[in-house]
């Protein structure tokens, strides 16, 4: 236990640096991925069916490739191909957003496509304008159905972000490995990492479960 606090104290600055990089990376990826996912699903919902199938196929192909491979692909071949160099951080942020976009898309498009039309019809025949049907009926219901799934995905993205250490992004896990190579205290350091992620993920999991239970009940009428 003493070791633990000693290491934490001694390498405080390094941990903070790593933590800060991880948080920056995740914030960028959460925000861009979710907004792009929303836009993509709206486009895929509006386009004619054949295009929608193309989107679906593309999504399946993209999420079939393991993250590390996609990351390396964007880091080496892709940058060579377009003849430009991006920093590891930018590359990791780009790759993670790219994947997050398609994951969020997948969740949203299924709520959009499976939306029970009769509910929207009921709202229309009750005299709500089409804008109100969208604002007060469709969007709130779709959000309630999708939020728990999207929150879960954001935890997954947070955890996947540690792979970006592989292209030397100085995120928290990379820093932990560096410290370990100096002090050789794997038990302490990796336990600290575990605790760190539990602290970060646990509240989000609880939130997701809460929303899931609340909204599953609310939408149980179907």
């Amino acid at each position: 236990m003493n070791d633990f606090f000693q290491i934490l104290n001694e390498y405080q600055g390094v941990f903070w640096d790593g933590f800060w990089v991880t948080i920056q990376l995740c914030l960028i990826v959460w925000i861009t991925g979710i907004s792009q996912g929303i836009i993509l699903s709206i486009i895929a919902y509006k386009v004619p069916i054949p295009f929608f199938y193309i989107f679906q196929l593309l999504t399946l192909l993209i999420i079939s490739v393991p993250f590390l491979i996609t990351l390396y692909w964007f880091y080496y071949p892709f940058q060579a191909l377009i003849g430009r160099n991006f920093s590891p951080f930018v590359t990791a942020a780009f790759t993670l957003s790219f994947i997050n976009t398609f994951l969020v898309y997948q969740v949203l498009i299924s709520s959009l496509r499976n939306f029970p039309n009769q509910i929207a019809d009921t709202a229309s025949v009750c005299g709500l304008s089409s804008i109100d049907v969208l604002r007060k009926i469709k969007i709130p219901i779709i959000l309630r159905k999708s939020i728990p799934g999207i929150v879960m995905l954001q935890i997954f993205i947070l955890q996947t972000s540690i792979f970006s250490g592989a292209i030397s992004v100085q995120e928290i896990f990379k820093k932990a490995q560096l410290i370990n190579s100096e002090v050789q205290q794997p038990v302490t350091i990796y336990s600290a990492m575990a605790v760190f992620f539990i602290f970060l993920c646990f509240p989000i999991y609880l939130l997701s479960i809460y929303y899931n239970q609340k909204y599953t009940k609310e939408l149980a009428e179907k």
Partner: protein
Amino acid sequence: MIIRINNISKAYGTINVLSNISLEISQGRFYTLLGPNGSGKSTLLRCIAKVDSIDTGSIKFNLSDGPKSEVNRHSESLWPDVTIVFQHFVLFPHLNIKQNILLPLKSRYRENYSEIFEKTISDFQFEHLLQKMPWEISVGQRQLVAIARAISLRPRVLLLDEISSALDNLNAKKIALLLKDAVLNGTTIIMVTHSINFAKYCADEYFVITDGSIVEKNLIQQIDNPKSEFLKKSITENKYLI
């Protein structure tokens, strides 16, 4: 004449669901639509409500005469002057009962919606349901709320798709009286039902539809002398167990 249905047809793929249906619906009358499962009753109501499209023919409304209320109109929309209570999925699942009723009311009546709301709540005795979510009340109660919501909008034409199927006798009677009251105030009702007793109790006239065609129409007093096979079997052989 408030609705003139002129020779309409509708097909899903190669199957004709409605074939050459013509009907004239008078203002302030209560019609009931009878027929076996899958005969096209719901489809006909959905077409009249303009929720579904028709392939050929025309449906014309004459909403210009008769009582007029101070209401918001969204462009040229018929709704909710013409409105429908569906067979399923009748409430907004994310809103409580109070909001379920208030949301359309507020959109139709800018000012005096709270009066109408209060009247609806006391007519239907919903005081204890207001704060509940749709999943917290029974199927029959959900149907009652949907009917209350539709009546509160004071539509000119009210289309009802099997609303009595989940109601107990007392509630069915209560609803029947409220519906008759609406008719007395000028509303025109077309109601699909499988219960001949309920039809007899409420309606002025009946139609029978089988395989997408109207095979019989008459005053409700004549329903005990049916012409169509379906009604004959239903009544004389007592096929209606419910």
